[in-house]
């Protein structure tokens, strides 16, 4: 295998990991083993991995309520993720965050966010910081088609533009914001086109095509790293599951969902590509799924065996000096 082939296999493995992670999370939620509510990104794996495959460990990332995939793609530890989603002490945030609030600052993951479009101003600040510290890091921000209508987007993109910040704004347009179709709530079809308002280059991509997402992102990341300023990318994609687990989904038809699932599954599409190119054999594919499954089982076992935090640990971590 060439180096590139090996990389591709590794990206594919990450996509499989996200698919399995999310599937498992859905099952665990259905079995009432995960408290609260969770939002799964099944169907959007090419976007997460396509984008994050272009990033270095020290690049920054902000993500959303639907952020598991992005975190895994940026290299997050599965054990700590599962443990966090379970509310365990060994989780990324010691159980304080849960599914919607995971971060790993050692990987530049500045956090998922429970507030829609909350990440854009934050990543813009990371951009300012990069510029002031004169590094060649890059900041990436994922947000949805629904998020695109919040004012934070406007303010952040304008600032990123006038200061030429090293940022890649990634719209994951999965055509729905909770129950609300994009074509109802958004005044334009191609959200990326709004980048013209900020004098930022923008592109739309088939967001379920891993290679295309990667190609476009590579360019944007390069541009940012060279100090040439921000970019906007719109990954057109679809979420296979409801907005949250348990969503009655009256706002769309089963046949619409099935059409995407059957004809436009990003994991399958990349697998098919790799098979066509003879990079991925049937055996290797099975092996990958098996290995991922094993790894995830370990993560779940870790989470299950981990203790819950002690109640009074609720008082820790607010301030750097606990006494305050």
């Amino acid at each position: 295998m060439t180096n590139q082939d090996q990389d591709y296999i590794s990206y594919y493995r990450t996509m499989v990991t996200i698919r399995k992670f999310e599937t498992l999370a859905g099952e665990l939620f259905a079995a009432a083993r995960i408290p609260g509510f969770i939002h799964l990104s099944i169907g959007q794996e090419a976007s997460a991995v396509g984008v994050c495959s272009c990033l270095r460990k020290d690049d920054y990332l902000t993500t959303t309520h639907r952020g598991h995939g992005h975190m895994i793609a940026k290299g997050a530890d599965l054990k700590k993720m599962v443990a966090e989603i379970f509310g365990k002490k060994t989780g990324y945030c010691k159980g304080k965050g849960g599914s919607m609030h995971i971060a790993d600052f050692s990987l530049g993951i500045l956090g998922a966010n429970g507030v829609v479009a909350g990440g854009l101003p934050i990543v813009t600040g990371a951009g300012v910081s990069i510029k002031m510290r004169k590094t060649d890091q890059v900041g990436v921000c994922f947000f949805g088609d629904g998020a695109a209508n919040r004012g934070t987007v406007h303010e952040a993109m304008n600032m990123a533009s006038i200061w030429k910040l090293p940022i890649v704004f990634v719209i994951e347009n999965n055509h729905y914001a909770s129950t609300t179709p994009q074509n109802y709530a958004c005044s334009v079809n191609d959200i990326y086109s709004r980048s013209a308002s900020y004098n930022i280059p923008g592109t739309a991509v088939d967001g379920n095509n891993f290679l295309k997402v990667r190609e476009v992102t590579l360019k944007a990341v390069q541009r940012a790293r060279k100090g040439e300023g921000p970019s906007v990318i719109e990954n057109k994609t679809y979420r296979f599951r409801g907005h949250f687990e348990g969503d009655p989904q009256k706002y769309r038809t089963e046949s619409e969902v099935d059409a995407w699932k059957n004809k436009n599954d990003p994991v399958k599409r990349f697998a098919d590509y790799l098979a066509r190119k003879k990079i991925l054999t049937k055996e290797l594919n099975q092996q990958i799924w098996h290995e991922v499954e094993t790894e995830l089982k370990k993560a779940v076992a870790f989470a299950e065996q981990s203790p819950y935090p002690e109640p009074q640990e609720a008082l820790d971590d607010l301030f750097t000096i606990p006494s305050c």
Partner: protein
Amino acid sequence: MSDRILSCSAALAEALHEEMSRDETIFILGEDLTAHAGIFGQFKGLPENFPGRIIDTPISETAILGVGLGSALTGMRPFVDLHFSDFVTCCMDELANQTAKIRYMFGGQVNIPMVIWCPDGGGLRAAAQHSQSLEAWFIHTPGLKVVVPSEPADVKGLIKSAIRDDDPVMVFQHKKLFARQGAVPENDFTIPLGRAAIKLEGKDVTLLSYGSGFYLCEEAVKGLGHLNIDAEVVDLRTLKPLDMDTVARSIKKTHRAVIVHEACLTGGFGAELTARIQDELFDYLDAPVKRVAAKDVPIPFSPPLEDYVLPKVSDVVEAARAVTYR
């Protein structure tokens, strides 16, 4: 007319149904309202019955609140659904600098008949950004009225009053209480804003609360009974305007008060109420007013952590004991 058992959610929908039938300038505005009749199903029946009068918006809280306001200034009576009370932070300017101030600032030229409906509260493992109780910010914002109903009948009666009120009214309804059942009169009744209810009579200590705090007090009364402490439970229902008369009447009887709310302690509504009680009723108090509230941290996700942070029945019992055994 007779009472039926309804949930808080159904009481809300019924109030809206009645009011929207009566006055066609009333409409509902917010995110994700029509597909599932509100994200908690709280507007059951309304999308079908009032097409065009329950309007889905983009995710644009700033504009949502501003649109509510602009429509109220020009002849409509908007009922704005904020989705989660936590997102009030995204329209705080429209709320605190515009809605609350416009009538006053413009010398009373215009009325602002607007309800801002905020599902709030914790206990659902929804973590720091979906679990807050923020009523105290608005107590400190002149120009807003603040209502926090607890039982289904209060929901119906207060929602109807809030809708009929010609001033902006914030209503906080606890997410965990949507399913709570209770008797609700069938007729077209209202509960005036600014009137508290003594829901359980007692003579040893006054438990003052609202919203989810009311249920903690109700339960605490049993535990206190075992301790031979006879507690009176006052459900404030409206925080602004505040019914100090009822509070005073009760404390003049019991000489002791405990305030219970789910919002965090420091700077919560309990602080204001304590300050007024100790000022206006100093000579009647045999013990300091105690406050029971959430601990001063964001709401954490993990069940043992969240349970530790939120106030509990045993906290109420403990506080009541502390003031009565003094």
